[in-house]
């Protein structure tokens, strides 16, 4: 009796529909799907955006971020390391974005200081008693 060696189901051929913009980036589809849906609604879309629109936006955003980072790296390599300031430089002409970035950075600093102060107080309480 022949043992028909039925090969286990072959893994599906590598998807050729992945965006080819970055060969090393094998990201999952729909990484930002949930986030994007809330964002799109917040900015004016339907409460339930179309899936194809969400997918397109995700592709566009990833490409945008990729190009942004590459541009920042082009600037940074002249000096050395890639810094946050390089991104501030890139958006310097886009006033709303620049303001938002500086706002986010100072909020982050404030939170860091607040957390540090909280830890110091905790220590004082612990040793004081």
């Amino acid at each position: 009796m022949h043992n028909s060696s039925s090969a286990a189901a072959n893994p599906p051929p590598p998807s050729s529909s992945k965006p080819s913009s970055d060969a090393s980036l094998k990201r999952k589809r729909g990484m930002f799907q949930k986030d994007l849906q809330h964002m799109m609604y917040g900015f004016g879309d339907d409460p339930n955006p179309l899936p194809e629109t969400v997918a397109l936006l995700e592709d566009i955003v990833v490409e945008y971020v990729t190009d942004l980072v590459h541009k920042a790296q082009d600037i940074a390599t002249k000096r050395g390391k890639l810094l946050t300031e390089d991104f501030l430089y890139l958006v310097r002409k886009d006033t709303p974005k620049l303001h938002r970035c500086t706002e986010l950075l100072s909020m982050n600093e404030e939170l860091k200081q607040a957390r540090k102060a909280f830890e110091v107080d905790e220590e004082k309480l612990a040793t004081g008693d």
Partner: protein
Amino acid sequence: MAKMQAILSQFTEEQMSRYESFRRSGFQKANMRRILASIIGSQKVSMPMTIVISGIAKMFVGELIETGRMIMAERKEMGPIRPCHIREAFRRLKLEGKIPKQSVPRLFR
């Protein structure tokens, strides 16, 4: 500050819900970090950098959606935003120079 309070107090329920989504939505830091690490090629992406890029990306999404809605208004179309609107919005933003382009042509796409 006071102006914001005045405006918010006049919001309908739908406007409030939308505004809440607008304020709270954002790109997951972990996911964004992962993508940035793979683009930069190093594992360590600082928190401030992730925050800044997420902020820029969110505003970019806003520009696309708002421009998309403008285009729908021009075409007198209703309903959810469709990919063709986003593509047209992207094209217009490109003309305005808001999209970073590679100055060196990518040879091996």
